[in-house]
């Protein structure tokens, strides 16, 4: 557990030093969610209906931006090989990096969502369900993004392909997350999709690091 904490602390400290880079996903998120009302009709009702989808898709796309910070930095300076060789299981290291990605990239995005949801004329009562769905869905998202980063870690121009690799796998998250948010929006019980999202998260956090560790090992060969 102390290894987990050590890696988390170190990565958070590194990310804090490059806070401007950490802000990029946030700014991207703001810009994209601003562009949609520009591109669509600004009627309040329509905005509320599309707002759910727009916010979810924008969250997905924005969290992809912090990809490189996950493994590429360590791969470039050789610390990735050291991590693979260390007595700490690679799954612990991977979980630590996923936790950092979630804390530094996704949590700020989720924090911004209520403000943007209100700007999309969504009722305040719908916000808890939306935040809940995001909190349950995003751990899986982080796992999938980490998997994309690990699969392409040895590629020089890996960034362009990661979107194609990761986004199709996020479709179930999107489906159930938006479904849950829609239920919340229309005052219907959202427990079903929320439980499914939680199940996905448990599954992904348990098994994902195995696949990610295997991918890192292949990448470093």
């Amino acid at each position, binding site marked *: 557990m102390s290894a987990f904490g050590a890696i988390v602390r170190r990565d958070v400290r590194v990310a804090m030093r490059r806070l401007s880079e950490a802000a990029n996903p946030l700014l991207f998120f703001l810009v994209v969610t601003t562009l949609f009302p520009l591109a669509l009709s600004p009627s309040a009702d329509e905005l509320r209906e599309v707002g759910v989808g727009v916010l979810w898709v924008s969250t997905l796309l924005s969290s992809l931006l912090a990809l490189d910070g996950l493994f590429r930095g360590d791969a470039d300076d050789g610390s990735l090989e050291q991590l693979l060789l260390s007595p700490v299981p690679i799954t612990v290291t991977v979980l630590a990096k996923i936790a950092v990605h979630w804390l530094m990239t996704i949590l700020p995005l989720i924090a911004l969502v209520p403000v943007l949801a209100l700007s999309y004329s969504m009722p305040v009562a719908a916000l808890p369900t939306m935040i809940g769905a995001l909190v349950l869905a995003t751990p899986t998202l982080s796992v999938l993004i980490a998997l994309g980063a690990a*699969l392409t870690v*040895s590629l020089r121009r890996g960034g362009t392909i990661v979107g194609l690799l990761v*986004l*199709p796998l996020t*479709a179930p998250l999107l*489906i159930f997350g938006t479904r849950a948010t829609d239920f919340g929006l229309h005052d219907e019980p959202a427990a079903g999709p929320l439980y499914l999202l939680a199940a996905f998260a448990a599954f992904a956090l348990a098994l994902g690091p195995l696949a990610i560790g295997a991918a890192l090992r292949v*990448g470093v060969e």
Partner: protein
Amino acid sequence: MRLPRWFHLLGSPPFVYRLAGRLVPWLGAIACVLLAVGAYWGLALAPPDRVQGQVYRIIFLHPQVAYVSMMAYVVMAVSAGIGFIWRIKLAHAVAVTAAPIGTTFTACALATGAIWGRPTWGTFWQWTDPRIMSETLLLFLFLSYLALRAAFEDRDKADRVSAILAVVGVVNVPIIHYSVIWWNSLHQGPSFMKLDKPSIAPEMLTPFLIMIAAFTVCFYWLLLNGLRGQIVERERDTRWVKQLVEGREP
């Protein structure tokens, strides 16, 4: 526990090359006969549908091709997984061969589904239909597998990395199956899951089943056919391949 001899032989590229070479003509003949019989039955012998008229005849193509496309992904993922875990090159060769077959079959399923949708649903494409969405996602999964492979110059790395992707992606395949149960949609429910009480007329059931068998055999015919080329490509510098090509020269 001593493993049977055929188990070891299945890991030997020249053995599989020759075995596939002997099986391919038979599989091809069976596939062609079944496809011809099924197509003729479905087009000419089966009566027109009460509701959909003649256009329902796409039911003898679209579900079968979609089913085979999903099977192709599973074959690809399982063989890639075997190749990854036990480091069997032939397993990777099977996965690589299955990928383009699965991709084209998925595209075909989407195309025939869209053609079928226009006269029956009134629209070529229904984004909110879960089966369309899942089949489209399957196409993306195949394409991402091919793209990832293409990004690596080292074939071994490409094999192992894409194997991980394929195994992770295979989780999507049961979601396709259960999405019909989880969602309300335009798609008709699974009317062929129970064999005791099919909600389809018997004159239509027979060609339907024939075409399932036809496309399945067709897939394995195409797989073994393509596998031979893949084996030669991978084993290019070995003695048995050199002897093979020199034996062909006049």
